[in-house]
């Protein structure tokens, strides 16, 4: 009896092994339906948001930085237009020479658009 019980247990274990080794084939239609559900329910991938001007500005310090940049720009512009006394002529230093165009023209003043030359010739 005990021997028979053991044989039955062995047979049962063999059946379990067979079942594990050969799972039932999945119907193709089921796989198709499940995949269709998955794709239909899947959240859409969100593309990286375009970085606006404010995002770029925030990277370099935000509004305080923008204010500093504007102030520095204005001061620089003003120093170029009306340099204070004692300040070297920056344009001369940058270009490296002073223009002698006026001397070459015999002292005729060269000003905006050459109108003064035209006036001199008419007078003469």
């Amino acid at each position, binding site marked *: 009896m005990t021997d*028979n*019980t053991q*044989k*039955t*247990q*062995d*047979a*049962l274990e*063999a*059946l*379990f092994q*067979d*079942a*594990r080794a*050969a*799972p*039932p084939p*999945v*119907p193709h*239609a*089921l*796989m198709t*339906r*499940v*995949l269709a*559900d*998955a*794709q239909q*329910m*899947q*959240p*859409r*991938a*969100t593309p990286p948001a375009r970085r606006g001007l404010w995002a770029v500005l925030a990277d370099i310090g935000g509004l305080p930085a923008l204010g500093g940049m504007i102030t520095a720009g204005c001061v620089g512009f003003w120093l170029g237009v009306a340099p204070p006394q004692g300040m070297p002529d920056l344009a001369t230093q940058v270009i490296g020479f002073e223009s002698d165009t006026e001397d070459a023209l015999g002292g005729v003043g060269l000003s905006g658009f050459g109108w003064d030359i035209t006036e001199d010739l008419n007078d003469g």
Partner: protein
Amino acid sequence: MNMSAVPSVPQDDREADPEAALLARYAAGDGAAARALTVALTPRLYGHALRVLGEGAEAEDVTQEALLRLWRIAPDWRQGEAKVTTWLYRVVANLCTDRLRKRRETGLDGTAEEADPAPDAEARLQQAARHDALQGALARLPDRQRQAVVLRHIDGLANPEIAAILDTGIEAVESLIARGKRGLAQALDGQKAALGFEDDG
């Protein structure tokens, strides 16, 4: 029972849960993850449902419904709280229980009798006969015993995981499995020779 809630299954030493990583990718919109999860999970769930229900169309419905719930919960899935497969087996187990209960209520519970392998055993290949014999014996077990035996001996899960799936204690699982195997042995006793095992004597 709330089948949508993530069960509180303690994960020993944070065992690997590759499906959880795939599910995170799925929730992020990765199409390849959707295919990988479908291929990895569908056969396991369908196989389990088929063993428990004994009927292909119902097993298909249960499998599709369980995975539909997974797709729905994916964006809110909290990694580390439960294994994806444990959660899914639990959903499948509950769906199977509901269907088995409904069968009894409507008097359509004829699966066990229909699955009786004896008339066809000689006409089929031995492998098919063994499959039918096991399925027939499983169908004769009470629902919970059948679920526990299939989870343990065919799906290969450990008792703590089965306890989480069946929402019971480990000792209860051990008892379900032991009683289930005794029932299977009784059902198969006398068929060993026909199934290609040694003589019954």
